[in-house]
């Protein structure tokens, strides 16, 4: 099925190519993300998963292609998009508290030159309670565990009150309790009619967490509803050549099937 790129799609990508030092990282991407789904972006290391997400938010220059968020360029739709970067992308030894970080998601509402006021901090606390760590609101961020830091980032994205969320490996290196909290948060967002696009690396949990998947390895191998697209054949195409991963993928398949 050829993507239609209609304005009802949270994300429509047409012919996207991104290159780094003239070497293409992702190539000829054509993709529509349907509204109201939990979408997993799956692929081996270096497949360009993070690059795809970053290109969608104009964080890195693209060699060619067009991207639209609900039918318009990202620049005009910032308020509709929430972003959870990789946890390792920042230095957590920064002199701010958890609620200060969450309040960063409100800066567009606070406005230039103005200080963060009490109502914003209250809002930040409310978002922290959504991820279950309201009691850590005033703790300095370096004193939080990895899972708690990830929750802070999620709370910051929630504070953006977006319709479409992009999350870069939110499940990477978090404890089991945090993983559960993130999953229930994703389902809550889905129930509110919001769309989440999540870079994910654990093949074993794909069928459990996502109802739509994008299989990526420099180009789109396949994209669509999980039960149709997450097949052994497609996984071999995505992870092909990486033999150890192939085993892992096959195992994940069996695992996924036995779940049903």
């Amino acid at each position, binding site marked *: 099925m050829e993507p239609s790129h209609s304005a009802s799609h949270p994300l429509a990508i047409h012919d996207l190519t991104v290159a780094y030092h003239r070497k293409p990282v992702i190539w000829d991407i054509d993709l529509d993300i349907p509204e109201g789904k939990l979408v997993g972006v799956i692929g081996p290391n270096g497949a360009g998963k993070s690059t795809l997400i970053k290109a969608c938010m104009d*964080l890195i220059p693209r060699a060619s292609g067009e991207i639209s968020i609900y039918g318009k360029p990202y620049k005009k739709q910032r308020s509709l998009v929430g*972003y959870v*970067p990789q946890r390792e992308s920042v230095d957590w030894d*920064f*002199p701010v508290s958890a609620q200060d*970080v969450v309040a*960063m998601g409100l800066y567009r509402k606070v406005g230039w030159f103005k*200080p963060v006021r009490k109502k914003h901090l209250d809002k930040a606390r409310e978002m922290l309670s959504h991820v279950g760590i309201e009691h850590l609101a005033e703790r300095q961020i370096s004193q939080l565990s990895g899972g708690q830091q990830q929750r802070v980032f999620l709370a910051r994205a929630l504070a953006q009150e977006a319709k479409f969320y992009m999350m870069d490996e939110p499940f990477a290196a978090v404890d089991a309790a945090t993983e559960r909290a993130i999953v229930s948060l994703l389902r809550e967002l889905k129930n509110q009619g919001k769309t989440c696009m999540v870079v994910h690396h654990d093949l074993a949990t794909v069928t459990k967490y996502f109802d739509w998947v994008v299989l990526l390895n420099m180009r789109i191998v396949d994209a669509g509803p999980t039960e149709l697209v997450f097949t052994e054949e497609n996984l071999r195409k995505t992870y092909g050549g990486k033999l150890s991963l192939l085993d892992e993928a096959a195992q994940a398949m069996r695992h996924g099937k036995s779940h049903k």
Partner: protein
Amino acid sequence: MKMFIRVLALVLLVLFVSHPTAVASQVHAELAHGSQLAGGPVRSFELPPWEDVKDVLMLRNYNTKLVVLSTMILGVASGFVGSFLLLRKRSLMGDALSHACLPGIVLLFIIMASAGGSGKSLGGLLLGASLTGIIGVGVVMLISSTSRVKDDAAMGIVLSVFFGIGIAMMTMVQKTPGQSSAGLIDFIYGKAASMVLQDFVLLSGVAVVIAALCLLLMKEFALLCFDQTFGKCIGLPVYLLDVLLMVLVAAVTVVGMQAVGLILIIAYLVTPAATARFWTDNLRVMLLLSALFGAMSGWLGASLSALLPGMPAGAVIVLMAAVLFILSMLFGTSRGILKRVISHRQLKIKVGRQHMLRAVYELIELRYKTSAKLSLPNKPIHYANLLSHRTWSAASLGNLLRRGKREDHIEKFDGMHVSLTESGFGEAARITRNHRLWEIFLITHADIAPSHVDRDADSVEHVLSPEMVRELESALEAKIDTQVIPPSPHEFFVAGKLEGEKEL
């Protein structure tokens, strides 16, 4: 630690360059000329009379008042900007910038001199400084974005090349007959004593603007420093903010050059901020402290240099900043060394106390526990049993018991028997319970063998917080009654027969 080495290196550099070499002797001559206020010959280190010291420190002396006030204001501005520079991890960029100012100064001097003036208009020279300083930063960004040369290498190259060009140009100017270029060298090492009222007005005007911008844009700069990717996402013009931050650094550098010199200005920018970080985990407090430390270094440094003839202000200011830095590194309440040592020691004491109380409790349990239903009586135990219960020396056990007595946990110990007080018994029961809960948790949830669990539980139980204990209780709810102390899941190694078969 890195910062400390940096400061030390700068200090050594100052000492090195202030040796009477051909260039520096000229500086000395001028410094002596400029700092006559305390009287006395150059290079004698007689202590100035107390009255003079008081006059200078209290800003009563007109000549020094200007200098001291200027350096203090500069300290406030550089404290603000420096905090963001440090948090943006661009300290070295500030250094590259200040070094890149030199060719601009000499260039503008040549242009102004050939246009017929004396070539020493301060405004013109500072304009030149900002120009090449910003070009320098631009070149660094250009190199690191267009080639694969990393940031630090790019900065090192720009720093040395621009400074080299400046020095070469300066030597050429000095060889040109009929030109008095003597003042130029002051921009390298700084000469606070030569400041006049106009300089003061310029400096304070710029400093006020800088401080105001830093406060107004605090949250924007904070986001830039913490997570620029996210900033970009929500539409923050990160590139512009980055440039603005560099312009502010350039402004501090340029107006501060006269006082501390372009080689040392980086220490003024970075040291107060790094010093403030030892005291707080709050950005607002850090900014204020950084400004305070900057002002203090300026005040003390400029005063001291005015009182001790022959002491260049820039160097003394940096030394004062270094003193504050070292004191903060030792005594800082947030991340100072002393604080870490104390909290480590407190943990050690706590661990020792808990081991001792639990050992006593376990012995009471071994001796008097008859049924799971009955609660344990608080009875004395034999010292010899306690000593062999854990691997501890008689001396360290003695210390623990003495401390226990001071803390009202130990009723008495006389070398034969040890008995717990009421509160000691309660505390011992609580500690033992936490230990057992943790042990059972490890066995049931982490598959740790019962024979290993004692050692593993040992390392964690001391840091169990009340909420963690509650979590443990709920995790183990199905397995144990939450009110009682569960029996130990492992056998105790009992050295010989328990003494005290008869009731004590």
